[in-house]
């Protein structure tokens, strides 16, 4: 019955940058783009959101209350760091990015610059 909890330690995959890629949802509407990212266990003060030269970087450090002397027997979240980078496109207004972080879910709103907002293109048939 205890096989799952007392699982044998599995060999770790060695990756140079061992941070985890948080899963995201990205939706676009006429006025801009909304991104949702899962960053469970990251407190607000350990989340870093940066927009620089068309690049959006999301970084977070995991902080769990782990009692002293805890021996990990099963870990699916195998790294204490989350990191993901996105390249923005030019019609997005990187000056007006707003973000909201609640219960481990980050919501980022990136509006489009005013001149990139939709206009109806009329097609002339001659």
């Amino acid at each position: 019955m205890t096989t799952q909890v007392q699982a044998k330690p599995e060999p770790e995959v060695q990756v140079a940058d061992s941070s985890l890629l948080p899963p995201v949802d990205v939706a676009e509407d006429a006025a801009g783009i909304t991104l949702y990212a899962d960053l469970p266990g990251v407190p607000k003060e350990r989340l870093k959101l940066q927009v620089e030269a068309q690049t959006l970087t999301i970084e977070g450090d995991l902080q769990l209350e782990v009692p002293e002397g805890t021996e990990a027997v099963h870990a699916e979240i195998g790294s204490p760091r989350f990191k993901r980078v996105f390249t923005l496109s030019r019609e997005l207004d990187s000056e007006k990015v707003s973000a909201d972080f609640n219960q481990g879910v980050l919501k980022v709103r990136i509006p489009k610059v005013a001149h990139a907002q939709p206009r109806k293109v009329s097609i002339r048939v001659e």
Partner: protein
Amino acid sequence: MIYRTLFPRNMFAELDRLQRDLAQAFEFSPSIRGAVRGGFPGINVGNTQKSVEVYVFVPGVEPGNLDVQLEKGVLTIAGERSDPLPASDGGKVTAHINERFSGRFRRVIALPDDINPDAVEAGYRDGVLHISIPRREAALPRRITIQ
């Protein structure tokens, strides 16, 4: 039970998962509950001398919408997470990336035999549900004095 992978497009993680899936397919006697890894929510388990610590990564789920049950040494965590992306019914919103899990979930883990099911504590913070299950007093290691 097919879950969306927890950490998408990380090549090493994908290879790792593939290797595990293969290992499970060819394993002589796999766990009765199938794949232990890779589902939603992610689970970490730690042991101390006094307790078993379970961390369930459920971002964006209200604690009130989580159902945690411990019965016959089996811990079950169930709940539902809504999808912020609109249904693709010709609306004006386009979903470009859809990786986050949505819908109903349920995960089951077997706990060791020496736990005390009457003194379980659970807390929720920053999208992580932390369940602490103490071990029975009798099961704690004791130093035996030699007369």
